[in-house]
């Protein structure tokens, strides 16, 4: 059941303190407030600056290789036996995921603000690689914080970052995954706030990050809209994207929010199953709280302590989610669902075998759900999956699951 959102409603979101309804906001220690307010002011100015936008578009075209194709998965459609399945190919971007759209944008912001030192957190390592990449290109000092557990399961990306000249800091505190990496990035930022720009990798964090990351990622949905009209002659009936922090999903959904006929599905990591408690699905099974600078749905215990999460995919292994998704859930505009590790792995294998496209384990969650969804839809309907990244980084994990040493 969808509500009708209007352009007018959307243009008022977030409000001038970064709220999407009751969600979002700016919950940080005082030391960071001034930097966040300067960032907000500069971003709102640059957003309207044709020169800034032209620089962004140029990099997306010539460095990232955009537009990314919209591909009709004909054989997969036939085998699934329902709606037409199309793929938005963010996996074909330079560095292999949607993450780079955002790092290009934020690195441009850093340059405008005169900051020479860049920090980032990363889970799967895709955001870390995308950040290290833009830093290499612009000659910026780059520090990436990564949970010690993720350093292990994403060893390939760790080495990529090092080759690109970044320093990777393995975070040993807490649950040693993405949320702890974000804590340490925040600690570094507080300590080096004068010369450091924090490139957050998803639509979470304090205002204005959820806003600016969404704007940078919205290129996905804008392209898709135009491509769908050109290639299929209509808007899609359903969009499906995985949700970790929610940047690839919001980037895909945002330009369609006022199109009532387009159903939106955000797929969270069901891990071992929602009923086991071992998952990373705050929208499906969490409740509102405050973490990492914003109010949103969280996985927490009854005392407000953040729970540890589980997902086979490091990039979805996060107990929170972007505040705009929390709002879209509460107003009923988007549907949030989950698939388990096992279903995601099946999704990975299916897309690999049937279309010769190896999706990231994160994206495989969207694939798995979309296959179920398409099977229930009519043949003349159209489902688009956001293939947010490619699976090269996950080969090691999958081989391990298959019991194979590489």
């Amino acid at each position, binding site marked *: 059941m969808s509500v009708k959102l209007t352009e007018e409603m959307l243009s008022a979101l977030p409000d001038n303190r970064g709220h999407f309804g009751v969600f979002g906001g700016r919950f940080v220690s*005082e*030391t960071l*407030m*001034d930097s966040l307010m300067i960032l907000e002011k500069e971003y709102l100015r640059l957003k309207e600056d044709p020169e800034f936008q032209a620089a962004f578009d140029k990099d997306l075209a010539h460095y990232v290789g955009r537009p990314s194709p919209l591909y009709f998965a004909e054989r997969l459609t036939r085998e699934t036996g329902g709606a037409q399945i199309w793929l938005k190919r963010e996996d074909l971007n330079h560095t292999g995921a949607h993450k780079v759209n955002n790092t290009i944008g934020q690195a441009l912001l850093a340059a405008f603000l005169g900051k020479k030192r860049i920090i980032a957190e990363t889970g799967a390592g895709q955001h870390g690689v995308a950040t290290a990449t833009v830093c290499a290109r612009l000659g910026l000092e780059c520090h990436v914080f990564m949970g010690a557990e993720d350093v292990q399961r994403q060893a390939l990306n760790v080495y990529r970052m090092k080759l690109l000249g970044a320093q990777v800091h393995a975070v040993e505190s807490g649950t040693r995954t993405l949320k702890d990496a974000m804590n340490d990035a925040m600690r570094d930022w507080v300590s080096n706030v004068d010369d450091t720009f924090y490139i957050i990798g998803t639509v979470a964090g304090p205002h204005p990050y959820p806003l600016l990351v969404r704007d940078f990622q919205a290129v996905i949905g804008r392209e898709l809209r135009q491509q769908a009209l050109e290639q299929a002659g209509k808007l899609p009936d359903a969009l499906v994207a995985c949700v970790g922090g929610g940047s690839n999903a919001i980037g895909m959904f945002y330009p369609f929010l006022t199109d009532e006929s387009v159903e939106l599905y955000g797929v969270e990591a069901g891990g071992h199953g929602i009923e086991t408690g071992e998952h990373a699905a705050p929208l499906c099974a969490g409740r509102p709280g405050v973490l990492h600078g914003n109010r949103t749905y969280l996985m927490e215990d009854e*005392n407000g302590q953040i729970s540890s999460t589980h997902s086979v995919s490091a990039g979805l292994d996060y107990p929170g989610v972007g505040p705009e998704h929390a709002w879209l859930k509460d107003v009923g505009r988007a549907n949030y669902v989950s698939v388990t590790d096992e279903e995601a792995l099946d999704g990975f294998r299916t897309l690999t075998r049937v279309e010769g496209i190896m999706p990231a384990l994160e994206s495989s969650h969207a694939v798995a759900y979309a296959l179920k969804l398409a099977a229930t839809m009519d043949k003349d309907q159209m489902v688009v999956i956001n293939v947010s990244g490619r699976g090269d980084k996950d080969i090691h994990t999958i081989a391990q699951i298959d019991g194979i040493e590489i």
Partner: protein
Amino acid sequence: MSRIEQVLQTLKGQGRKALIPYITAGDPHPDKTVELMHTLVAAGADIIELGVPFSDPMADGPVIALACERALAHNTSLRQVIAMVKEFRKDDGRTPVVLMGYLNPMEAMGYEAFADAAADAGIDGVLTVDLPPEEAEDVAPLFAARNLDPIFLLAPTTTDERIRAISEHSSGYVYYVSFKGVTGAAKIDVDEVAAKVGHIHELTALPVGVGFGIRDAETAAAVGRVSDGVIVGSVLVDTIARNQADTDQLKRALTDLLHPMREALDSLAS
């Protein structure tokens, strides 16, 4: 007048500075916290800042982050911390207690339930690290109605405009964070602190406590000279970590740390 205001006013009348130690509740064990609070008072504390452990203490360095982990290993909850203060109040009706922590445990408990329980337990002030006044609009009236002082942070990066606005939302005292960094770092620059605190005093009539980086009598005196009180945290928490096994030894060690600070601060008065 709140208990915090009374204590600070009395000290001011005597030309003395407040000594405000911080410990994390539940560290090393929930059974020890009340005892340690009494130890702090006996060693010269004027106000106690009692940390509420949180799983993701983003503004804290490793020393206090580990204290949170120790406390959470014993499942120390916000409700339990409030109960500890109630217990403390049975023997001490005089020393103000400020809860210091992060927002989410309070949000999970519910703001009204928290404010009721805190007031009932004899808690005097609440300092929430990740709650700037802009986001405190719903909480502020609940605190005001129960005489709980909202205490906000000021930082080296805080603009004059914000210093004024934050002070307007504060009561009791304002907490000046002495450097850009996390708790436990050793970056304090006393001249810089003196200049900024002097400036803050021009913008607000509230007492100014200074924390972060105070670890011995010398730094306490240097900062006490230019402020209304000093907050001492990581060095105490580190002492707790190193003496977890032996409570008597721990109490002696805490006393040995605070005593010289108390004396150094009081020597400023003469």
